[in-house]
């Protein structure tokens, strides 16, 4: 594993490979041949470039916002595989399936290879000159747009791209950077901020002896799943921690729990307050909260709580007992608890338990403060899109730049963003592959893939200290007609403010200058060039920093009279969307590996499905594979039924991310888009869309189709000793050999 120590850009320029791109190993040639193929031949490669030997380059994964350090294995100029970068504190040398599939973003057969411009109804390919001319005419030096007239819509974005976007908007006297995340953590972050004083505390999972999680899928689609998984692995080593999960639909984390409880969706807060009430019976916790809260909590006796939440009353006292017994512990709230009209209150109530149990500083910490706040990511929200939608509807927006966001696909029906887009005179999208939103734009510019571009990233979740993640090209660009986002933004900025940016011939120069300028912060004595080379070689610039202290605001927790969830006669079922760790909000549905990677719990691939509890299914005479219509107040979708025991019986669940209509061959026509049946329910505190508050009715269509899954006709072991379970008190984990150490 030799890492590069040269100027990456020069390396790619002088490599001059022939023959490599044309050969497809193993395919076709099955006999001794002479003169049929070309030899890999170089002009002037660096010494470490040896044909037949793979070289690893460090970079940063951009598949989600976790900012994992990765290494790309490059051979004969081709990027072959991604691995975790051991130097990255976040990934620790590991990588998830989603990260692996990053190469398929790069090699995707449906990638956009030339700029496209709208001609009437369709997009037609145009040259870069033409495209840039159109772009600069609208957004260049002559542009008269200002303020709210221009908007930039992105997904979660950090690093110098975020900086350049901000600078570009600034040149228009605008701050209209709309960050939209269909699966936004806004509610939870707001609750954290209110209760603990920070938006995103650092979870010390490995230090906890007991974790009580209310629908927090930290092993699946959490904020930093690879890091959390490593923490989880340590948590499971001696002394082994216990995980209790309470949620309406079993997540991947729930599937790994020692004890899993089904709860009526939206009642997690009630349960948490019930626990709080129970805990306050213990002397040592009695003074953790103010007297009036303690008084109010008395309404949450275990029978009331049990009746409201649907969880057995004994469970409440049992969990409370365990929380009391096993310290330090950690109580987590997750999207399933937060995505309700009173989601903020739920999350706050759950966080209150941490205050009572005094987990602050033990298993919960604040993040170290980042030396470059301008590089840290902005958390996306759906509220941002709603506001943009209002501006667009009002006709205020004259130009819209869309980067890494697909609101046409993810916006719920009551945010008719797709229809309103036509009211914007100039819409430009920067994409690697055409998606539903890009297809509605006037100009689409093809970007370099993350494997071809430079960049810097800052993760939203910084487990220890702070990291500045460096992204560098892992191979030469595949398509000459693609450009990096940074380069395009820099070009526009040069148009707007020629003087300020003339020192930077391109984005590479900009980023190199910017990073080397930050050298003093990292307290190194090496030269600028060495510093930059080290940064590239390691893929990460790390800075240790003390964790920020957490505050205590128990008063932020609203303790009302216990409210049960109102049932709806027209829509009797709770609808719980499930977020797949690899498809997320659907942006990765174009990657074949992820489509074929079975959903861990149902083993279904390439599809959407409706999870329904077997007893409910039996009552309704639904068999697996029956096609059901799931109808909410705003829309309906049809999918195959899958009988799933890990779900609250009055709840049905469907995965998000499928149902694309214009996102390439691997995504189109697979499953249905469940974003389109969300009810317009918003969190009362933050105004954020409540994703878990939709109610639906289920109708049988009478049709039937086989569920495409890996599982066979039985999900039982049939007496075979396949997976064996041992009671924790029997296992002598401490005596085992493990590379994972505390």
């Amino acid at each position, binding site marked *: 594993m030799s890492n590069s120590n040269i100027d990456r850009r020069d390396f790619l320029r002088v490599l001059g490979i022939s023959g490599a791109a044309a050969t497809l190993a193993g395919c076709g040639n099955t006999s001794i041949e002479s003169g049929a193929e070309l030899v890999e031949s170089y002009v002037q490669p660096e010494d470490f470039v040896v044909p037949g030997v793979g070289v690893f380059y460090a970079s940063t994964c951009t598949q989600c916002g976790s900012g994992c350090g990765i290494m790309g294995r490059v051979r004969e100029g081709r990027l072959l595989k991604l691995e975790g970068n051991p130097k990255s504190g976040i990934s620790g040398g590991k*990588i998830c399936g989603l990260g692996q599939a990053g190469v398929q973003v790069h090699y995707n057969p449906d990638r956009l290879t030339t700029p496209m411009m709208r001609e009437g109804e369709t997009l037609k390919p145009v040259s870069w000159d033409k495209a840039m001319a159109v772009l600069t005419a609208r957004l260049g030096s002559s542009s008269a747009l200002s303020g709210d007239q221009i908007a930039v819509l992105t997904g979660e974005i950090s690093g110098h791209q975020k900086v350049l976007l901000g600078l570009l908007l600034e040149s228009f006297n605008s701050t209209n950077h709309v960050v939209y995340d269909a699966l936004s953590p806004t509610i939870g972050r707001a609750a954290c901020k209110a209760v603990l004083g920070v938006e995103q505390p650092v979870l010390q999972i490995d230090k906890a002896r007991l974790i009580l999680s209310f629908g927090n899928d930290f092993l699946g689609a959490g904020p930093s799943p*690879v890091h959390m998984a490593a923490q*989880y692995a340590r948590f499971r080593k001696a002394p082994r921690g216990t995980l209790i999960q309470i949620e309406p639909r079993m997540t991947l984390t729930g*599937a790994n729990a020692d004890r899993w409880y089904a709860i009526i969706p939206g009642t997690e807060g009630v349960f948490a307050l019930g626990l709080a009430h129970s805990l306050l019976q213990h002397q040592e916790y009695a003074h953790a909260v103010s007297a009036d809260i303690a008084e109010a909590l008395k309404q949450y006796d275990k029978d009331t709580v049990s009746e409201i939440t649907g969880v057995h009353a004994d469970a409440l006292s049992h969990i409370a007992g365990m929380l009391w017994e096993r310290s330090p512990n950690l109580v987590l709230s997750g999207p399933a608890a937060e995505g309700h009209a009173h989601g903020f209150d739920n999350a706050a109530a759950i966080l209150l338990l941490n205050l009572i149990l005094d987990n602050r500083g033990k298993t919960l910490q604040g993040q170290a403060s980042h030396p470059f706040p301008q590089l840290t990511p902005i958390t996306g929200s759906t509220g941002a899109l709603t506001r943009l939608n209002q501006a667009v509807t009002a006709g205020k927006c004259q130009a819209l730049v869309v980067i890494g966001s697909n609101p046409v696909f993810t916006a719920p029906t009551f945010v008719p963003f797709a229809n309103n887009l036509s009211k914007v005179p100039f819409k430009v999208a920067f994409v690697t592959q055409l998606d539903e939103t890009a297809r509605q734009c006037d100009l689409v510019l093809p970007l370099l893939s993350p494997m071809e571009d430079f960049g810097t990233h800052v993760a939203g979740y910084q487990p220890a200290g702070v990291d500045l993640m460096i992204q560098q090209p892992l191979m030469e660009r595949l398509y000459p007609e693609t450009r990096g986002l940074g380069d395009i933004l820099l070009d526009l900025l040069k148009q707007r403010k020629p003087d300020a940016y003339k020192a930077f011939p391109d984005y590479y120069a900009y980023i190199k200058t910017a990073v080397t300028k930050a050298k003093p912060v990292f307290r190194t004595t090496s030269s600028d060039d060495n510093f930059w080379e080290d940064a590239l070689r390691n893929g990460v610039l790390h800075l240790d920093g003390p964790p920020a202290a957490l505050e205590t605001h128990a008063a932020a927790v609203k303790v009302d009279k216990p409210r049960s969830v109102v049932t709806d006669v027209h829509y009797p079922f709770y609808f719980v969307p499930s977020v797949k760790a690899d498809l997320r909000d659907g942006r990765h549905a174009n990657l074949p590996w992820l489509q074929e990677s*079975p959903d861990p719990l149902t083993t279904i691939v390439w599809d959407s499905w409706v999870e329904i509890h077997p007893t409910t299914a039996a009552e309704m005479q639904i068999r697996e594979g029956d096609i059901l219509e799931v109808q909410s107040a705003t829309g309906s979708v049809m999918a195959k039924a899958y009988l799933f025991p890990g779900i609250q019986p009055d709840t049905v669940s469907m995965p998000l991310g499928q149902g694309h209509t214009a996102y390439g061959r691997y995504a189109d026509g697979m499953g249905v888009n469940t974003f389109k049946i969300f009810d317009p329910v918003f969190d009362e505190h933050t105004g954020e869309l409540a994703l878990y508050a939709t109610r639906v009715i289920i109708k049988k269509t009478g049709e039937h189709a086989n569920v495409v899954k*890996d599982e066979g006709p039985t999900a039982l072991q049939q007496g075979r000793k396949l997976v064996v379970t041992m009671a924790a008190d029997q296992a002598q984990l401490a005596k085992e*050999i493990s*590379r994972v150490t505390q």
Partner: protein
Amino acid sequence: MSLSNLIKNWSSLRVKRPYEDQYKDKDYKWAMVIDLDACTGCNACTTACYAENNLPVVGREAFSKGQAMHWIRIERYWGEGEEMKGRFPDRGAQFLPMLCQQCESAPCEVVCPVGATHHTPDGLNSQVYNRCIGSRYCSANCPYKVRYFNWWQYPERAWPNPLELQLNPDVTVRSKGVMEKCTFCVQRLTEAKGRARTEGRRVADGEVVTACAQACPTSAITFGNLADDKSQVARTWERQQIKLASDRQEKDENLRGYRILEDLRTYPSIVYMERVRDSEA
């Protein structure tokens, strides 16, 4: 000189395997430990395997017919007996990464008519694609059903340009009619062994791991050299009292290690560590 070889080495040609200390004086015996308590079922290993070993994405149609090509698959069981009596799977799901067990006495090896699958000196159960004629007898005889057959001409359909550029040049792209299976990433092993040999040493522990082990976010998969006493895998086997050449382990009750379907006398090279659940919770 086969005839003279026959006469000269008759007794060694008549040795049955596995036997105790078979690999004691050998350089390598690759083996694995999978900790089911650490495995979260996240499928990272599966995708890593697709990337490393040029596995074709078969598509929905073929997948629905049971023609998937995942060399390592994550199985999800819902428990047995008492656990299934309740309304919910109270103890979570049971995930099992199932891949070729690299049996020491592999049922598949015996039955292949052309000897496309055999046992390597490193204790791997090999599959030579270009020798395979596709009788599928090995798959029929595999108790674990971890052998995957190329039902279609995947090189023509699974990697539309430019996806083919991702293909690992160290691994053959299998055409139709060929059986394939987990190789313990033999291309990595061969490379590491060659490098070590040139440097006149044995491959160090952790120097080479399979793609699944490398990716696994919880490090549930440990890969290593059983012939090297100091390797983590060898020490774990030792500590778990698992003997390679035994079909019924006599071990302490509170040890978690076991091998799957061991009573069939396949002598697998993968030890699974029992999943642990806190019965108090």
